[in-house]
């Protein structure tokens, strides 16, 4: 057994190195023959200069514009078939990130089925504590009693193997009601303010998903609690075209700027939806910047706003990390022209009927075993590939039908498909994008049923 482990470790190392080399050369290096190419590591990583940092005026924190979102660490199956964090790969990713100047790591007790904090903590422990900032959250959704909340806070410190937290967030607030219920009425705010005073919480803020009114309510509390920072969802689609009832990022950022509160950005890439764009959109972006990745546009957009302290990205793969490091070393802010271009792009994307799922998995696990994100992502993939037919008479209907049905079975096991959704609605309150999940699943199920019966 032990020997096997070592063998696997060795193998992963080799494979990883290979992947790194391939990624470096294939995605970021550009032309081998380019006369301008520098020697050594710069060619391999494609990194042109130094990471851009933003300074937090209130306390002088010098934060890398690229923050590491620890919600999407690579997973492997252990001996019992359970999904566990692939710690060795996490170490390699964190090594690369720190080496290239990333110093902000954002996790939460609930991420990755509760494994993220410990995995991140284990990996960061190998570096001096003062060389990086840790952000984690109070995710007291299911049980918001004072005891359970404090227990969760202490557990975070323990999992992250640290005496203090640099950034601590009240996880996923949407309005004043939720805030009062989870943090005020139970006395948690008093507790947290004490902890802040004691220096065990260096910065206190919250992450937000909700309506403009909800945000206003939270901003009213600024006078009382002095939010040190706020985490918001910002990207070139949400800037003016936020999905559902969610507030536009433009509004959120304005409100924060007014009060001089720095923002930390989540979902700059919409869970990959702004890198896996429809082919037409990808062509459009590539035409404008043939050497840059589709994702780099989204990261430059998020970083361009001066009020932004840090842009989080949940990078599972080394190639993504390398690409983002490249984009931000240094950040080249978007010009007025480019901003207008992205605004147009966002409008084009509105025309594709994708479902705004960012694969955050907050809805999971579904008690009835449905693999919700897999079903929605598969649907989006087919929409973007133009493989969703509108009627039997469509040109290419037959091909689209087969493609959808075959790939659906591949993406989601039969017992976890949309046909199994009973519509109990337990997932809905968890979705930060306020997607009406049962309705979307039933829509997809009807589409599949029509394809099967050839009755579209």
């Amino acid at each position, binding site marked *: 057994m032990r020997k096997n482990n070592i063998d696997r470790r060795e193998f992963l190392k080799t494979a990883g190195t290979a992947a790194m080399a391939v990624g470096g050369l294939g995605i970021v290096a550009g032309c081998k023959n380019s006369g301008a190419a520098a020697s050594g590591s710069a060619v391999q990583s494609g990194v042109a200069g130094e990471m851009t940092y933003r300074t937090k005026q209130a306390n002088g924190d010098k934060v890398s514009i690229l923050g590491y979102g620890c919600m999407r660490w690579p997973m492997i199956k252990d001996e019992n078939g359970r999904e566990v964090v692939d710690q060795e790969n996490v170490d390699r990713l964190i090594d690369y990130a720190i080496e290239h100047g990333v110093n902000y790591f954002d996790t939460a007790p609930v991420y*990755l089925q*509760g494994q993220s904090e410990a995995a991140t903590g284990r990996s960061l422990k190998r570096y001096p504590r003062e060389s990086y900032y840790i952000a984690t959250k109070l995710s007291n959704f299911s049980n918001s009693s004072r005891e359970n909340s404090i227990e969760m806070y202490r557990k975070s410190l323990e999992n992250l193997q640290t005496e203090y937290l640099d950034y601590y967030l009240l996880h996923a607030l949407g309005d004043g009601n939720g805030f009062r219920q989870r943090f005020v009425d139970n006395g948690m705010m008093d507790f947290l303010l004490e902890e802040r005073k004691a220096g065990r919480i260096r910065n206190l803020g919250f992450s937000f998903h909700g309506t403009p009114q909800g945000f206003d309510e939270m901003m009213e509390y600024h006078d009382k609690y002095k939010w040190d920072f706020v985490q918001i969802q910002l990207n070139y689609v949400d800037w003016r075209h936020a999905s559902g009832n969610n507030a536009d990022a433009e509004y959120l950022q304005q409100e924060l700027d007014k009060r001089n509160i720095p923002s930390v950005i989540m979902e700059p890439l919409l869970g990959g939806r702004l890198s896996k764009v429809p082919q037409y959109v990808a062509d459009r972006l590539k035409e404008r910047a043939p050497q840059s990745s589709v994702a780099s546009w989204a990261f430059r957009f998020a970083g361009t706003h001066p009020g932004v302290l840090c842009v989080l990205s949940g990078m599972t793969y080394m190639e993504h990390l390398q690409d983002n490091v490249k984009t931000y070393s240094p950040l080249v802010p978007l010009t007025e022209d480019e901003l207008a271009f992205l605004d147009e792009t966002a409008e084009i994307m509105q025309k594709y009927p994708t479902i705004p799922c960012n694969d955050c998995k907050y809805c999971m696990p579904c008690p009835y075993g449905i693999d919700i994100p897999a079903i929605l992502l598969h649907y989006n993939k087919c929409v973007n590939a133009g493989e969703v037919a509108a009627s039997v008479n469509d040109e290419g209907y037959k091909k689209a039908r087969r493609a959808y049905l075959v790939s659906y079975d591949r993406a989601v096991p039969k017992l976890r498909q949309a046909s199994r959704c009973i519509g109990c609605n337990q997932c809905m309150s968890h979705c930060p994008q306020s997607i009406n999940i049962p309705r979307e699943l039933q829509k997809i199920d009807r589409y599949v049923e029509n394809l099967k019966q050839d009755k579209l």
Partner: protein
Amino acid sequence: MLRKIRIILASVFFIGVTLLFLDFTGTIHAWLGWMAKVQFLPALLALNFGVVAILVVLTLLFGRVYCSVICPLGVMQDIISWIHGKTKKKNRFRFSYSPAKNWLRYSVLALFVIALVAGLHSLVALVAPYSAYGRIASNLLAPLYQWGNNFFAWIAERSESYAFYSTQVWIKSIATFAVAVVTFVVVAVLAWKNGRTWCNTICPVGSVLGLISKFSIFAPVIDTEKCRNCGLCGKQCKSACIDMKEHQIDYSRCVACMDCIETCKDGAIHYTRRKCLSECAKNDKPADSGRRAFVVSAAIATTAVAAKAQEMKVDGGLAEISGAQKPERQTRLVPAGSVSIRNFEQHCTACQLCVSVCPNQVLRPSTSLMNLMQPEMSYERGYCRPECTKCSDVCPAGAIRPVTVEEKSSIQIGHAVVCLDNCVVNVDEVSCGNCARHCPAGAIRMVRKDPDDPKSLRIPVVNEERCIGCGACENLCPARPFTAIHVEGHEVHKTI
């Protein structure tokens, strides 16, 4: 030349029929479905007298070419016997004449006819040659084929191709699987040692055709003037029916394979019009049929793993799921087109062709003793989908008569029964309605649990008159281990 023609035709039939059992996509059945329909016993049970008449005339003209060309079990034995012959030259000439074991042949035939009339379906299915081969192909060959397919699907998935999709490989009935293994071993051992022993002692179709081929017009005939009594023809006759001493051939056992014609170096055997009929001496010798016991094993015990309780709601992960347990149905379910269970039982030869083609994993061989191996329906893995009529398209025996998609949508094969104690609306106190949402007949309605409360959760009720018994509700019901709704079969199917 004649032998080559026989081998080519036999290969075409053998591969064709085998593919019928292997192709789970159902595409080749449109082209080759007739190959199953010309099989003797299925045609007889389907009351397909045209085909039976043609086969009788064929045998009367040319001898038992049916056994050498059309019957897949016969060709399978030839292949096994041929492989043994290839191992050593000596083995090719390992046969010798043995008198016919008529008492055995005809008592098996008599028993078979009695079983057929008396409705002992499992006994009929056990010895019927096409059924026996169907079992072997669908239980032993199909999994290999499917694994091969799944390997290609695995590759296709990694190269973004939709040319292959993976399919489920599972043992549909352990009893039938065991019977298939025993059948294969017995037939293969007999073929390996003695060629066509099975066909000339056990096979009821062989016996019937043998009675006819005794009087066949064309047959291999030994020219005694040319014969130099070398005995080679007798030593390689897999039917052991050439009596060298008497220069006689037992035409009731000769399967017209033409091997002897090719073997004879003196050109002393011709396939030609017969002038005189020969009779074979009767001889009682112990038969080497070792086919008796077959294992009837218990049903598969499915393990349901209980989901672990969680201290805090964390993100991601998948809830453990388990498949539903098979309910005990008071009346079994047979597909639309069966007309009635009685009609189905009378015609079905248990060849497993419908089981092989069912794309929804609904059909599987029965494990009940009276109908052992005859297919029945159950909905744990899928349900009888409205757009599918594959079983009725392929059935060669008239057990499942052809129906169109439109006809099927109004044939009532059973009706759904609700068990509210299992329903998640009651157990988990959540809203559901998945059965009603997926009922293609609109037979299930969700009604208020508490009629006085307009906001009450809703529970399913079945309008039995509209229900066709397709099993969508049962298959998609979330209740475990037993579903809250299941389908009971009907003795006689009716159109609603």
